[in-house]
């Protein structure tokens, strides 16, 4: 039985706070954790499938043009080689998040260097990898493909454009103004598990074990790519080794494995090499961003301008939404916002953790630091003075707003010195030491979701949904929600995720997973509670459940009388999506040291304070925050994709030369969870936290670099060469 709840109004009833089990929000260890720490949790490539063959993708070595021939015979005689797959249905790009349709297909047309064009299948991985290198391919190259985003006329993303008031006038009249241009380089998700799929056919039924974030969309994308009915497909992603946006849509290996398995009549496993993951899946676009801030003598913003240039391949709808939080974070009645996208032939640009704010916020918050200095204001104070009462563009109330609390509590916990700030005040040996801060903001997303909850006759519970846990903690928080609602120890709640046979949720992405699927589970539990209340002669509102017993003394097992009680919860966000501007907010504080001689920067300590609605599990929520802060360190100091200026190929396509932070780059991190209830965000009053932790943190580091050594840098990442160039003598 399905119970549908469409949310048109905020729910400020705080129902969950009045439950009796007392497990929600508690810092419980992950329920699937033991499997992970003992190596027994199976990831996509690890299912033991009998008679399985190995496929390796072959990728293009031209930037744009046509594959004129693929010489199958060049490899079919090699030991163990079974087939070459160059079917027109092969996908040449990964699908964008929530695309819900097949990504670009047709391997004959090449649009970027490194694009998949074929799959070689062999008995063993070594045979397939060797043969893939030997496959003879002829091309007709179309010269002159643009690869430099600065060298083409960009397209304006008109739905992002805001012209409000007269910014030029505000800038001219301002007591203090800033007009600066920041750049950010491309980023890679670099999830530790490479993209992988095992495809197996049983007649016309297809099962694919894959590394995917959003099965409900992925199954549609795959069905579209293969031109088959969704009913005949089963996707399984029980454990996903990180996604960070790169596994939102199906990627090339999923379709290739399915086509190959069909062609040869045997199961096929395709695991992308690390280099292929870098070169064929998704990059975060580089950006160029102009920030204009106009303020009166009190530091109150009168004008706000943020214009950004990003890039993508022709035919891609996605444009890094750089301005996403700039639309509402600060006051300023005169506003100019504009996003432009340059069409170039580098690999696909798409979602990488916190698309938009991950790079937009570091630029904005860097510019705010410049403004604070010009206005002679403490940077925390400048931000406090510019928190808007309501959305400055949409005339909408905020669903909730904890920026001020985050700024204050964060400053307090960090020991922020409000005194006058001047660079180059503290030196220890070769090292300049300084502090910096920044605001955090990340829009709240939520989506339709379904989950089935079964209260078993034996007093345990089962949760079933296709929702994924990509490291976010979904398994655990769903067990906690059920435990809280039905009065069970979470250990008695079995959570089954990542299988399209279960009711569908929106998957993991855009930080919407917990609030969306958590709400579906909440709706299902509420329906079960109604049944139980009827059995005990009370109302659902009054029903108290704790440790397997109702407050009236009956054991759940007695109430159930040997029958399972199952409800499918169907949550749908209604008017709440249109009636409020909803966002997570926060503040970052960092202390860094910068080497006077070498320009090397090390983060000595960093703190984030975040308000993102109800905390469902204080341990996993904190982990999401420190993960985000760790990414902030990468954005600030080390991560940059490099593209060849001639053929546009991603040059540093491995983990040795694309520098994700290592252990030693990351100090002890402190997180302050600013509790709140946001009833307009979701029925469980929660918002997302998977991305907020990296939305602005890089600016806290950049601002600390300036405070430490006087190097004001407008280009991320702030590698030693850039620090030295900007360092005053």
């Amino acid at each position, binding site marked *: 039985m399905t119970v549908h709840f469409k949310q048109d109004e905020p729910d400020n009833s705080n129902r969950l706070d009045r439950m009796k089990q007392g497990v929600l929000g508690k810092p419980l260890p992950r329920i699937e954790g033991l499997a992970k720490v003992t190596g027994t949790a199976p990831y996509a490539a690890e299912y033991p499938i009998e008679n399985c063959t190995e496929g390796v993708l072959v990728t293009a070595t031209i930037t744009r043009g046509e594959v004129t021939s693929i010489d199958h015979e060049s490899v079919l005689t090699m030991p163990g080689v079974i087939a070459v797959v160059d079917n027109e249905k092969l996908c040449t790009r990964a699908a964008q998040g929530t695309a819900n349709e097949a990504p670009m297909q047709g391997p004959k047309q090449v649009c970027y260097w490194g694009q998949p064009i074929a799959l070689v299948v062999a008995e063993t991985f070594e045979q397939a990898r060797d043969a893939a290198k030997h496959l003879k391919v002829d091309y007709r190259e179309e010269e002159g493909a643009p690869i430099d985003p600065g060298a083409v006329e960009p397209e304006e993303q008109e739905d992002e454009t805001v012209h409000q008031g007269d910014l030029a006038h505000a800038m001219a009249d301002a007591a203090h103004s800033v007009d600066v241009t920041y750049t950010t380089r491309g980023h890679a998700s670099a999830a530790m598990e490479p993209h992988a799929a095992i495809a197996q056919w049983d007649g016309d039924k297809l099962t694919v074990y894959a590394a995917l974030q959003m099965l409900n969309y992925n199954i549609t994308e795959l069905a579209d790519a293969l031109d088959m009915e969704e009913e005949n497909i089963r996707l399984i992603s029980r454990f996903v080794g990180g996604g960070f946006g790169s596994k939102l849509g199906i990627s090339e290996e999923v379709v290739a494995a399915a086509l190959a398995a069909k062609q040869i009549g045997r199961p096929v496993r395709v695991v992308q090499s690390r280099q292929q993951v870098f070169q064929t899946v998704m990059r975060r676009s580089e950006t160029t961003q102009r920030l204009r801030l106009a303020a009166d003598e009190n530091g109150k913003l009168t004008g706000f301008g943020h214009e950004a240039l990003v890039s993508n391949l022709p035919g891609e709808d996605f444009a890094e939404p750089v301005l996403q939080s700039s639309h509402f974070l600060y006051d300023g009645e005169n506003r100019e916002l504009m996003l432009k996208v340059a069409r170039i032939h580098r690999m696909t640009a798409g979602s990488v953790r916190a698309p938009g704010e991950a790079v937009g916020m570091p630029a904005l918050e860097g510019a705010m630091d410049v403004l604070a200095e010009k206005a002679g204001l403490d940077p925390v104070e400048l931000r406090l003075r510019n928190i808007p009462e309501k959305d400055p563009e949409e005339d909408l109330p905020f669903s909730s707003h904890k920026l001020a609390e985050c700024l204050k509590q964060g400053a307090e916990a960090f020991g922020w010195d409000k005194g006058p700030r001047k660079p180059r005040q503290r030196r220890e040996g070769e090292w300049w030491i300084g502090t910096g801060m920044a605001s955090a903001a990340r829009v709240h997303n939520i989506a339709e979701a379904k989950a089935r909850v079964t209260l078993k006759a034996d007093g345990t519970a089962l949760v079933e949904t296709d929702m994924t846990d990509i490291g976010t903690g979904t398994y655990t928080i769903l067990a906690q929600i059920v435990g809280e609602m039905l009065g069970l120890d979470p250990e008695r709640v079995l959570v089954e995720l990542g299988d399209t046979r279960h009711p569908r949720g929106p998957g993991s992405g855009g930080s919407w997973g917990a609030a969306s699927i958590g709400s579906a589970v909440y709706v299902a539990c509420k329906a079960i509670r109604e049944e139980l209340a009827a059995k005990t002669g009370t109302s659902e509102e009054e029903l108290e459940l704790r440790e397997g017993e109702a407050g009236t003394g009956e054991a759940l097992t007695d109430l159930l009388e040997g029958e399972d009680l199952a409800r499918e919860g169907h949550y749908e966000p209604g008017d709440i999506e249109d009636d409020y501007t909803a966002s997570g907010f926060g503040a970052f504080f960092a202390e860094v040291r910068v080497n006077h001689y*070498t320009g090397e920067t090390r983060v000595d300590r960093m703190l984030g304070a975040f308000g993102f609605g109800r905390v469902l599990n204080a341990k996993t929520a904190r982990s999401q925050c420190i993960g985000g802060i760790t990414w902030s360190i990468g954005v600030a100091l080390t991560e940059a994709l490099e593209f060849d*200026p001639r053929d546009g190929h991603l*040059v540093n396509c491995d983990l040795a030369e694309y520098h994700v932070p290592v252990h030693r780059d990351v100090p002890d991190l402190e997180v302050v969870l600013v509790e709140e209830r946001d009833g307009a965000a979701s029925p469980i009053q929660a918002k997302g936290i998977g991305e907020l932790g990296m939305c602005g943190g890089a600016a806290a580091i950049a601002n600390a670099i300036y405070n430490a050594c006087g190097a004001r840098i407008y280009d991320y990442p702030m590698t030693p060469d850039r620090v030295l*160039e900007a360092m005053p003598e």
Partner: protein
Amino acid sequence: MRPFQYTRAPSLTEASNLTAGEDALAIAGGTNLLDLMKLQVETPGQLADINRLGFADIEATDDGGLRLGALATNTDTAVHPRVRSDYPVLSRAILAGATQQLRNKATNGGNLCQRTRCFYFTNIDQPCNKREPGSGCGAIDGIAKLHAILGTSNQCIATYPGDMAVALSALGAAVEISGEKGERSVPVRDFHLLPGDTPWIENVLEAGEIITGIVLPAPVGGTQIYRKVRERSSYAFALVSVAAIIELADGKFSRADLAFGGLAHKPWFDPRIGECLLGQPPSAALFEKAADILLEDARGYGENDFKIPLTRRTLHAVLAQVTGDAA
């Protein structure tokens, strides 16, 4: 990987025989070779496993120096009590390189032979004169942040990526080599070659020759420093590194053996640096002069231009650190 014949060499002589052919390579730790074989940058038809040939010992030499077996791992070497006490610059250099897992597997001989990390070298679908003579250099007009500023040629601007050899160069160590024609010893400073017109020839090893050991001279004392500048705080190749053995007597430099990493196709040793410093009292002006000499012929390729001032500043930092002159 291409298919290959795997043979465990039963003796050094047999190892030489096995690797004498064009198509043959010796494998020891394998941490660089297998990396490149997976990319098909290296495609040996014959792989001779020399791991169980012995010469993994670290032992004193008659003149008070130390002989490091070529098959001793980087870890064995870095943690050896005599290396730690008498050749700290070597311990430091090794510990600044790679990761513990890699150092646990990588051997001293293999470390000397490791190949460049140039992106165009490791991508077989890009031009590289080192990998495919005559195909061109992808880096010169491409992405060249890591690349060389000294001793480059119009054929190749790759760097030698290692740290250990930079310290060995400062220490004046020698490489012991065994081959079909017998044994020979080559100073580390002469072991690696500049690219010139033959960038594929990276060192003096000839076909069938195998490194059996590295000989360190008797301890020289002094203050020994290995300073590595990198983009991550660990596990990154050097933008520039300096191995320095410095001694002061009566307020003047009495020893100044310096070698540099990250700047060239080989660990860079320029005897004029020491000559410039010896007998002089430390001063900022002297450090600048030493840097002027070092960088006299330096040339950037756009992206790596920064290495010139960075090298100057890093040399200054090292000399200031040793001489206590923080100016």
